[in-house]
């Protein structure tokens, strides 16, 4: 019916009739649904992505920390729940914040550099990346290596392999390395100030495989962040198409 109305108002102008009704007939395009508008709204989108990345980071921090926890439990100890949160309370939030920052930083840098990341942009690849990351952690926690150098070298090779398999962008590599170095430095300082400590430090105050883990984590979170940013990008594209 609205089309009919439009036709009518058209006809009224065509027939040279009165124009009294031309403006009131049609409102402009109706607003989109709440979901779409939320996605397309930039700040909301940023917030949503940040929240998702934060939760992913917290979850991974909890799980991976659990992997590192000494595992000689054959009986359920009475305080089993507390072992899940065996780390200090500030570790998961820190990891979450860091992952949110990294995950937002990656697409941002991509757009700044003007080279959108196109390599293997799909969720299955992201999932594979996460699985490999968890595997690297798993290996660092559970596999008995002959010495620490071997362990660190293996993990470094695995991390580089992770980058090559799932990222392959120079910006990703640079960001990963720099963030990993920063994080290592921060950890050194933390341990130096006695906030926590490692059982058998072999690289100043920390374990030597820590930078590799950091690097792999940065690559993984960047991957997730880029994939999440794809949605906004897609919607913007569609919007421009429609306009």
């Amino acid at each position, binding site marked *: *019916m*609205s*089309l*009919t*109305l439009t*036709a*009518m108002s*058209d*006809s*009224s102008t*065509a*027939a040279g*009739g*009165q124009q*009294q*009704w031309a403006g*009131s*007939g049609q*409102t402009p395009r*109706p607003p*989109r*649904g709440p979901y*779409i508008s939320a996605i397309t709204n930039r700040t909301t989108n940023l917030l949503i992505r940040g929240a998702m990345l934060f939760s992913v980071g917290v*979850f991974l921090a909890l*799980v*991976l920390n*659990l*992997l590192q*926890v000494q595992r*000689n*439990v*054959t*009986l*359920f*100890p*009475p305080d*089993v729940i507390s*072992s*899940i949160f065996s780390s200090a309370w500030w570790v998961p939030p820190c990891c979450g914040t860091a992952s949110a920052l990294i995950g937002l930083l990656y697409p941002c840098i991509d757009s700044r550099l003007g080279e959108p990341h196109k390599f293997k942009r*799909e*969720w*299955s690849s992201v*999932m*594979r990346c996460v*699985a*490999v990351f*968890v*595997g690297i952690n*798993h*290996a660092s926690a*559970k*596999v*008995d*290596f*002959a010495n620490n150098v*071997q362990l660190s*070298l*293996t993990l470094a*090779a695995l991390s580089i*392999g992770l980058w090559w398999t799932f990222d392959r962008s120079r910006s990703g590599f640079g960001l990963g390395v720099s963030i990993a170095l920063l994080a290592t430095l921060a950890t050194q300082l933390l341990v130096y100030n006695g906030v926590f400590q490692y059982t058998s430090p072999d690289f100043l105050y920390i374990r030597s495989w820590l930078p590799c883990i950091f690097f792999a984590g940065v690559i993984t979170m960047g991957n997730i962040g880029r994939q999440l940013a794809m949605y906004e990008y897609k919607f913007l594209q569609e919007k421009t198409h429609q306009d």
Partner: protein
Amino acid sequence: MTLREQLREKISAAFYRHGLLCASYPVPIILFTSASILTCCYPLLRLPLPGTGPVEFTTGVRDYSVPSHEPQGDLGERPDWYRGPPVAYIQQVLVKAAVSPWDSSLVPVDVFRSPLGRAFSLLEEIRNHVHSDSSGIRSLETLCLQVTDLFPGLRRMQSVLPEHGCLLVSPGNYWQNQRELFDSDPDLLKTIQKHEPKGLHTSATLRDLLFGVPGKYTGVSHYNRKRVVTYTITVVLSSYDARFLGSLRARLKQLHPSANCSLRDDHMVHVHFKEEIGIAELIPLVTTYIILFAYIYFSTRKIDMVKSKWGLALAAVVTVLSSLLMSVGLCTLFGLTPTLNGGEIFPYLVVVIGLENVLVLTKSVVSTPVDLEVKLRIAQGLSNESWSIMKNMATELCIILIGYFTLVPAIQEFCLFAVVGLVSDFFLQMFFFTTVLSIDIRRMELADLNRRLPAEAGLPPPKPGPLRPREVPPPPRPSPHTITLQTPAFRNLRVPKRLRVVYFLARTRLAQRIIMVGTVIWIGILVYTDPAGIRTYLAAQVSEQSPLGDPGGGGLPPHLGVAPVFRGGDPTSTLSIHPPPDPTPLPENQSQGHHGSARAGPLPQAPPAVPQITWGAEDEEGWRRLSFRHWPSLFSYYNITLAKRYISILPVIPVTVHLSPQEAIEARHPQDTRYPPPPIPKVTADLQTDLTLYKVAALGLAAGVLLVLLLFCLYRVLCPRNYGQNGVAHGRRRRGDLPCDDYGYSPPVSEISPLLLRGHSMDIECLASDGMLLASCCLAGQIRVWDAQTGDCLTVIPNHGRCSSGGCWEQRDGWDGVGGAADSDCLGSEGRGSSVGADGLSEEEGGYPLRRRSAPARPTLFTDQPDLTPLIDTNFTSQPPSHLSTPPRTGFDFGGLVERAYMEHEPPSTSTYPSPSSASSSPPSGAQLQRTPSMGDAAAYLNQERASAAGTQATPDWESSVWALELRGNLIVAGRSSGKLELWDAVEGSLRCSNEDGLSGITALAFLNNRIVAARLNGSLDFFTVEINKPLCLLQYRGAPGRGSMPPSPCYSSEDVISCQLTRSVQCAHQKPITVLRAAAGRVVTGSQDHTVRIYRLEDSCCLFTLQGHSGGITSIYIDQTMVLASGGQDGAICLWDVLTGSRVSHVYGHRGDVTSLVCTTTCVISSGLDDLICVWDRSTGIKLYSIQQEVGCGASLGVISESLLVTGGQGCVSFWDLNYGDLLQTVYLGQSSDGQGVRQLLVLDNAAIVCDFGSELSLVYVPSVLEKLD
């Protein structure tokens, strides 16, 4: 040509040949692959099954020696864990003590106080036992397992469990092994109960640990009818010394001889414990599996354009999984036993192997040209991707090889598995998956072929392809057009995908069957491997219940054996009523039955009974009755893990202690006698023993309720609109149905050629029909009336100055002269038509007085009108068939007109007349326009006069444009932008009356039962009444004579003086312009930009309801005779209302953007929106059945032809859809070029024809009425 390119070509050629092979012989290759998978997996049978139950191995005591660490050649049936010394040897001293003879002076506490007291002396004996022989002196201290601190966190057990010394546990530990504490303890049971955990417990409790027998067998309670107390003293030894143990055994036997004991002591049992998985380790494992499933999900989701997505996804998963199994199996075959935890590395293996190749293959094959043969497609797809596949595989192998040289055993093993897995995965991809893919592609082509075969049997062979006809519209084909209905087998029900999955699951009961089969297999495996001693337990139960094994309990009613688990609390009342006939000691070698007899012995009613201590086979390995966590938990208290290790349990040493009543009395605590005797033994005993049962039952009930609630919540979350119930039923019910009428026929293969009605010079903007006549108005303001059956242009209500060819009506003039003679029979024919109509359709609600000959229940509204029925000539026989001889009658013979319409490029000229003003100046012209239905020339002339008079009275307004048009009978109501309402005679083309009461433009009109409702631009609503003043003659126009099935139309003869009066004007019906106006069933419904819908009663124009609920302007409304009201708005919402109560029945959101059109059938509501989506909703429940995505820019017009046939307008075409299935049946192209204007308006006529506007033309499309039997 480089080496690389040569290699590449060779690989490509090899893959091509391989693809041909796979596609040519699919079945043998699949068989071969399955066989090889099974062969490679065969070694897996030897691997231990995952599970945490302990495994046992029995050896003899005499020739026992500690097994060596190295595996020996002649292992025999020795399990591979039986290597090296055990963690500990367990020596249990099983004590059975009783006070005998039982004295009536004794109190219940005496049953266990003095027997327990004997434990201390026994402990002393054991501790101090020293064996000395040639090799030296050995005491317990040297042999026993020395323990240190308890596990931190178990401080509360510190007082009970030994620390820093021998691990020696007995009931004496409750009192720190000090007799004084025991003697001064006023309430022994309280002390024992003190350490029990609260609530339910499934693993070993402290009581079990200390007593060494399950709590209910100890006999330490006030209600012990048997009066035999059983407990063990458990000694944990770190090394085995046969001589020391032998001497200890001999010493204890000598001290406390067990007269009738025949326990075998020549077997020791080694128990191996598996690793227990704690929550802390489970969480990372579960996480990796979740990630794995997400990976598989996202990967298989990409499979597209194939016949069965699920099938291919399953094949992909099967490929990866069986390649893993093959790799493990192969490694096992070559002697590499996996030491890694399989469950942990499994996800990583899957991720490493990956599903990528499979997807790449699918994509490549699907993207090959569809017109190739299947074989060639497969081969080409394979060879296209061969290089990348090989490259990827080589890279992965290299990476894994690098990993192999890390020389870390775990990584090496992982890499080994990964390499074998990769190779076997490649093998499976090449053979298994490629073949499955070829089968799938072939199936799809077959389906395509079948789908098209019936339709295009006579056409050139169809082009097979993955494109579905629904997604891509067929190219515009020249006539003849056909409607195709597939046979049911090839039609796919158009339901949401998740519903399809649900259907599939429900139909096959897949989940249920899988769970059942899995459970059966699991139970079978459990019974077979018997990790927790189920078989022995069952055997014991059977022997206990069988009457043969229970001679002592012969007097017991048979039902007593039903609940043997709660033996301690056996209903003793029954026993007391029926004392066993033979309480004397029984032969020794009886097994379970002794309990019954032993219990039966010391009855309260038989005071001087002797408690009988017997030894049975179940005492031999009493530890079996303990929880299988008993030993791990005991050791874990001292931070010793038994995971992947074993303990050796030595044969028990039986000790029988008989105490005299005197001793029992001496051992009494002063408070013991004050203890009240057991109140009502039966009830409390039952209560106590059944308490566990009740607890379990309550817990189970709570868990069940919780589960149901959880499922309910899940259901609500996932299916907020109760999808399952109605949706499924709906789909089921409709599945068998086909879009056909009641007789099992459906519109079938036949031709549809649109009939183009040309004439308008500009685009058509208004369209109205009453079933037989069709009125259209174009932008130029010209109104044309067409015959809906034949498509003839009957009348043109001219615009001023538009008429060009006066010669035409000169010609008409001539016709009329001829036709004047037939006027009388014209009357007769019309009378016949109307009478038939009145008879056949007297149920019609219209209440048209002219057509009712015998209508007693005429609405009161029309009582003021004259009863004209007697005037209708019913003498049909008298009419001469004269019209056959008078060919050029415009009313009856349309052949010429049709021809002309097609021959002449400008049909308007044939029937265009000067304006009424000119008509009035030339009287004959008005009469010639139509049949002048009168009694004679004089009457005809009079008629003309009247008409012209009316014309002069009401001067037509040619300045403003027509905004709304309505047609009823032979009256056309036109609403103009100037606010003027005009009534035209459809046949004569004369203006009958006009009304200029309103000044605001009329946006919508409804014409029902002599009432005209006009909605104006300013939001007001005007109700007009059409009054007909007395006709002299009853002639009316009928389209095709003799069609009785036509709906009645009010017919106003040309002599009537028709007046149109404004009866009521609702000034502020809406705040904003009224956009929609619909009238049916005596109601007028208006929708406006102000978000509301209002319902008025037609008779008294009173507003009944104002319906609020939309959050946008109303764009479409549907109401029909059954008072169903549906409205759609700019917010994309569709509301269904109850017209009688004004309440909202349902409210659904289906469109992004405006709802542009709404139609209802008896079962569903169909809506179309600006988002080019057609949604079909269930009318009663408001559930969305399915939606059809149309191409962009299609029209928004909808029409329902029958219950199952939907027609939509598109770009230059109309499409017919099967409503039940959502399938596109046919697209009819209106013009030669497909890029014509969109169809904006679409009307469905009663004779299953549809009329739509098509630019400046009207198109009349007949839906084929030829019926074809379906089966």
